[in-house]
């Protein structure tokens, strides 16, 4: 913009940078949206800290810190301005922390964060170009690399959770996690089974009370336990129109329908739909992960198909796969399929009827 010319109206020409229409904009920019997602995630983090203690606090700090540093460092290396100020990388860190087990060794959490941000996002060009949800890429990497710590659960609401760390959290880098069995035995409330409701259901056919799962008094990943809280936080984003509720609705409806169908077939071995909805990471995934804008389709029909795909694959993996939980893989697969879904569901344009005669 050439500012040297005078701005007085009596001059020959007004020196105006030739913006084009529209000249109005609503206030929600990318930063604002991302910041609000962070706000929506904070209550879940706080509840998790309340539930599992300072280990989760450390986990959140490490994940967010590692994500921020990775993005900043990579931007520095490629001599671009740092993109950490758009808040998106904070979301990645928070989401990753919320999907890890509470006693996950911090060094592994840092590895997962670095991989998630570097491979899942920056490798493809950063915000807007990642093909899959970076947090889930990090988690999937951790799941494949550190399988045992990823499936080691600790009891909730243990007594001295605010004064001492879960021993495995503070494992030194590159070493195997410190065993938690003794600590669990000391701190567990009666009957802690060392497994999530899903694992209990899958491997031992022991159902868990749905009320417990709604409120979050179960074992599980740090942020996935309370289905109700996640829904509330999601509702905030939907009200502010910063989240696509259709994806969430589609995921949850399909998951409920699929598992309901199996439940009707054989209620003895298959869990009921409410259990499916409230257990594991489905709620967190449906509300915060599947709705990752960048990796999901934009076409009206595509959105529903994408959500349905996630819900369906999740239930199939849960019921028939080797793993008790499948939300992460379902979302990653749906992310991978989203270009195909988009291509197949291009919106029908206005007036796309066959033309009568020539023009």
């Amino acid at each position, binding site marked *: 913009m050439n500012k040297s010319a005078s701005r007085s109206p009596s001059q020959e020409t007004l020196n105006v940078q030739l913006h084009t229409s529209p000249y109005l904009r609503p206030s929600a920019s990318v930063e604002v949206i991302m910041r609000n997602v962070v706000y929506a995630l904070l209550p879940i983090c706080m509840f998790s800290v309340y539930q599992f203690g300072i280990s989760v606090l450390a986990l959140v700090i490490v994940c967010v810190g590692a994500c921020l540093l990775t993005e900043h460092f990579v931007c520095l290396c*490629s001599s671009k301005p740092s993109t950490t100020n758009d808040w998106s990388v904070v979301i990645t860190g928070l989401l990753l922390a919320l999907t890890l087990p509470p006693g996950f060794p911090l060094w592994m959490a840092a590895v997962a964060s670095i991989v998630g941000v570097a*491979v*899942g996002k*920056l*490798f*493809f*060009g*950063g915000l*807007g*170009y990642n*093909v*899959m949800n970076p947090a889930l*890429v990090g988690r*999937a*990497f951790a*799941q*494949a690399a550190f399988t045992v710590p990823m499936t080691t659960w600790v009891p909730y609401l243990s007594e001295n959770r605010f004064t001492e760390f879960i021993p495995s959290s503070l494992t030194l880098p590159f070493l195997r996690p410190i065993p938690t069995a003794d600590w669990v035995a000391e701190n567990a409330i009666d009957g802690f089974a060392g497994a999530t409701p899903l694992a209990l259901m899958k491997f031992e056919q022991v159902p868990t009370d749905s009320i417990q799962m709604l409120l979050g008094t179960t074992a599980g990943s740090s942020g996935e336990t309370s289905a109700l809280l996640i829904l509330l936080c999601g509702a905030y984003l939907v009200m502010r129109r910063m989240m696509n509720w259709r994806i969430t609705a589609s995921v949850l409806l399909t998951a409920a329908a699929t598992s309901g169908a199996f439940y009707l077939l054989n209620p003895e071995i298959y869990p009921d739909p409410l259990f499916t909805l409230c257990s594991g990471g489905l709620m967190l995934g449906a509300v915060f992960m599947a709705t990752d804008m960048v990796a999901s389709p934009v076409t009206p029909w595509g959105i529903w198909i994408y959500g349905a795909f996630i819900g369906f*694959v999740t239930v*199939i*993996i849960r019921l*028939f*796969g*080797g*793993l008790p939980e*499948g939300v*992460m*893989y*379902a979302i*990653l*697969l749906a*992310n*991978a*399929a*989203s*270009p*195909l879904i988009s*291509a197949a569901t291009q919106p029908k344009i206005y007036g796309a009827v066959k033309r009568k005669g020539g023009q």
Partner: protein
Amino acid sequence: MQPDSLTFIFLNAFIINNFVLAMFLGLCPFLGVSGKLKTAWNMGLAVIFVMLVSSTCAYLINGLLVRFELEFLRLICYIAVIASAVQLVEMTIKKFSPTLFKALGIYLPLITTNCAILGLALFQTNREYNFLQCLAFSIGAGAGFTLALVLMAGLREKLNLADVPSASSGAALSLTLAGLLSLAFMGFAGLGG
């Protein structure tokens, strides 16, 4: 699900141990032809077709070889049979369906050097599948190849419009995508167990 049931053999080759993403078979065409979605579809269809034909041929040949106790000639026979089968398929298609030939034409010769085809023949022999199992296996493998190829093509088309850093573009990008896909497909492990 029984390990030798047809459904399981199909699912195993299709998604659980996907031919491309878990067994690394057919990587050259996977990386080479996954640039455009449309070509990927055509290539995938061609591969399914050729896999069916060559799997059947290999099954018959193996029967003969075992009968005459000439197993040590298996590899040579397989490669010869597959190469000629592809030629034959090409000629047949050309004669009976010129449109299909147009769609598949340029990919058919490429398939000859596709190790997924030979791999299919070798694996089905190693696992001692019967004829129906061979069919299920070849359809599963072909479908798995197509699935991986099409997913990859979709992602690559999307990334064509992205600002990918110069160092990570090209083969590194494709391989990372393949790695991510492979990671996502791990979710199917143990399916039907």
